[in-house]
């Protein structure tokens, strides 16, 4: 073994330096991004200054970023559960859309006292998103339809259904079908006094995050989801109720996505527009992938994503950069981090295997309690029967 490989293995075995490959991945991504910016004749410093100016420099800009961040974090919390269970819930976009539709159905057609109104709207948002996700889960376990295919179909259905509602039954008079009328004030989520932020959404998101953190770090259900994510068949053979867990993980993820959709229409927009989710479901998928399904990393990574996305429009207007470049930058980042995380995993596995080989190599195994050896002879010594 070369000295270089020895050093690599030593490094990877250290908990502190285990994140080195991740840092290398980020460095590689940054170099790639700099090359692209250079190709566009844009100074990286100018991009950084603009992002800072439009996102973090003023309190209202910071509030905007947080408002963008909360629904992403909420979706990520749900996706952490499904990803841990090995379920690629691609249908999260549809679940957000259906949550928004569910909330709108109450906001437009039901009139209740303020508190009851808000509760009913959010309940409907969660129920609609949850039902949409549960349906995908049921198709997975009962019909053998992969959740990716099911999710794509359900996204398509949700988008078509929302468009149908905007064109026909919920279309305002003399409108083009791009959005419903503005909701009554009674139906809109209350805002904080100083900043345009919804305290209800903040509480919901915080609760969801703590729930997911506790579930995945110490609960029996979290362990079962982890086992299913690594090998569903084996988990089933160990007595894990895999079908129930798939349904439950999808349902909870759908509820969280539905609530995120509810926030979009009940607070940010105050009406139901076409393409209400705006891609935050797919953005959440990227966040969870980039965080390697680690709960503690998700708030930071999702915040960074929210920050960069919030700066998308100024980049286009001020620096004449294509807004889609932000998506490309994030894609490069995710790609590089995933590659180097894979390298880290492989090194870690090797180290563990070598440690065990070294530990068992010199040891003598303890004698078995009662050894009954049959050395391959003809069956003259077989057990009696009858």
């Amino acid at each position, binding site marked *: *073994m070369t000295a270089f490989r020895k050093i690599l293995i030593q490094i990877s075995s250290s908990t502190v330096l285990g994140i080195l490959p991740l840092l290398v991945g980020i460095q590689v991504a940054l170099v790639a991004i700099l090359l692209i910016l250079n190709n566009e004749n844009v100074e990286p410093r100018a991009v950084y200054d603009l992002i800072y100016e439009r996102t973090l420099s003023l309190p209202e800009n910071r509030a905007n970023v947080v408002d963008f961040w909360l629904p992403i974090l909420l979706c990520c919390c749900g996706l952490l559960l499904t990803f841990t269970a090995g379920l690629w819930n691609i249908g999260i976009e549809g679940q957000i859309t259906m949550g928004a539709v569910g909330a709108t159905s109450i906001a437009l057609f039901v009139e209740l006292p303020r508190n009851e109104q808000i509760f009913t709207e959010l309940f409907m948002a969660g129920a609609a998103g949850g039902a949409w996700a549960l*349906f995908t889960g*049921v*198709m997975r376990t*009962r*019909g*053998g*339809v992969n959740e990716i*295919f*099911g999710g*794509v*179909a359900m996204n398509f*259905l949700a988008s*078509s*259904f929302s468009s*149908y509602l905007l064109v026909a039954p919920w279309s305002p008079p003399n409108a083009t079908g791009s959005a419903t009328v503005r909701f009554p004030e009674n139906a809109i989520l209350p805002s904080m006094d100083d900043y345009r932020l919804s305290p209800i959404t903040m509480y919901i998101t915080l609760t969801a995050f703590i729930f997911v953190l506790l579930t995945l770090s*110490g609960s*029996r259900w979290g*362990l079962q989801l*982890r*086992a299913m994510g*690594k*090998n569903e*068949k*084996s988990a089933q*053979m*160990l*007595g*894990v*109720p895999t079908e129930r867990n798939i349904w439950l993980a999808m349902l909870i993820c759908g509820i969280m996505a539905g609530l995120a959709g509810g926030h979009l229409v009940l607070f940010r927009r105050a009406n139901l527009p076409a393409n209400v989710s705006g891609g935050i479901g797919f953005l959440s998928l990227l966040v969870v992938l980039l965080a390697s399904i680690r709960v503690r990393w998700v708030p930071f990574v999702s915040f960074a994503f929210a920050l960069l996305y919030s700066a998308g429009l100024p980049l286009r207007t001020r620096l004449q950069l294509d807004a889609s470049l932000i998506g490309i930058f994030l894609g490069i980042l995710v790609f590089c981090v995933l590659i180097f995380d894979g390298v880290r995993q492989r090194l870690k*596995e090797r180290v*563990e*295997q*070598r*440690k*065990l*080989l*070294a530990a*068992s*190599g010199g*040891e003598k*195994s*303890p*004698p*078995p*309690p*009662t*050894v*009954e*050896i*049959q*050395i*391959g*002879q*003809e*069956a003259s*010594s*077989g*057990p009696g*029967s009858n």
Partner: protein
Amino acid sequence: MRLEIHNISKSFGPLKANDHISFTFEGGRIYAILGENGAGKSTLMKILSGYQSASSGQIIIDGKSAQINSPHHAIAHGIGMLYQDPLDFAPLTVLENYIEGKPFNFLMRRREAEADLLARCKILGFNLNPHAMVESLTVGERQQLEIVRLLSLGVSILILDEPTTGISAEQKSQLFQTLKNLAREQNMIVILVSHKLADVEELCDEVLVLRRGKLVGHRFLPCETEILVEMMFGKRLSQTSPQPLYTNKPILKIHKLSIPARLFTIQNINLEVREGEVIGLAGLDGSGQVEFMRVIAGIGRPTWADQLTAMIALAGMWWVFGKILDESSAVLNLARIAILILILGPMLKTLYLYIRQRANNAQNAQIMLNGKNIGWRGYRDLLERGIAYLAAGRLEEGLVAGLTLVDHSALAERSSLPHVNWVRAWHRTKQAITDFSIKGRPFSQIQTLSGGNQQRVSLSLLPANLRLILLENPTRGLDVESAGHIWSLLLNRRKKGTAIIFSSPDLDEIIDYSDRILVFSSGQTTLVENPEQMTTARLGELIGGKS
């Protein structure tokens, strides 16, 4: 032909898998490499066949030093390896597999290759249909194909890894005759890696024994079995026979069961399993033994509820599509059809499996556990009722790679508490490590353990009060000592009345440990009541269809 290895060493970190091994193999002779699990046999063979490179040492073939860095290099030097599970392509034909791996030609020249294949088969006494799909062949036929393929590539040193696993006695006899002919008539070197001492004694001229990476012995055969065992393990092993412990109380009754297997549909199976009884299932690979056990364990059976849900989902989706889509839009209709195909395909497959299952069991088939019909229950439900199943693929269906021993212990614990008591799980794991002689630590990831230790972990995770354990090839890939230990753990369970049904390609194992044997042959089953009067040859005949 002459193969010399000088001071071959291979290290994995501090562990020396091969430690300065030197030997000279002569043409025309058949050698056996023996050793317990982890002795370094596979590493040495992988070095010779190019899958791994040695840390140090030299390989000399016919007086010339050979650099072997890949299987391709090894074949160029005339070394070929036949694996326990032959490395072929199941969805291709025999001829296509034969052509694969040959020096590249833009045109495959099928006719020439077919003539060549048939000529070689004729010389070796094999009967392979060039146009048959490999997935329809038995393991024995696949081995024959691999031997012919390797010989066509000019191999003169043939290494065989556990070649008798999964083949019938008749196929084994034919394989051994072929190997003897190749050694004697073509002056080839044949090296056999095996755990089965009976095979070694029957086939080989010389035997090398490895222990902890070192070559600890060399003997000419015939030689006393006990001497070989002592060289392998460094001690003599006791040879005791398990005593029957069953009562006359039946726990499982199977009535008129029909099961579709890979090769045949097994018709009308009737069996009564008694408390504490061990029933061995014998038959060629794919004859239905595994499917039989899986049906009893409730694994992979579509139920009526699956169908109902699938149909409701399908109808609901069709209705929603019909409501919201514009019929005149070709693009939307295409998308609608594409998505329906994606969803319809798997659902129709499930429906087909269900209908086939119903058709096969149309005549009141029943599986009764302690007098109650369990025919439509799933595995988890049956596990609660005392039926457990251990598959042959330990890491595929049984244990979860990436989780530790403590994680497994916590997963297998039946508890209604929402949180895991990790301290208790750790104590249980430590206890299991001691009780089941597992070489591993509580926080070792399961995939880093050897096959034997993984199997011990699987057994330690089974609930205590089981009525029936179903096992697919319980000692797959294990050496004599590990296999003996696994069986001692299993047989101890009989004292509490647990019955055992197991399948194995090793006929000796079936005869030695079974109270009764159920033979699967050509879609029929035969129950052997007195295994003590059975020989492997006779059992092989029954498997082959001779009554």
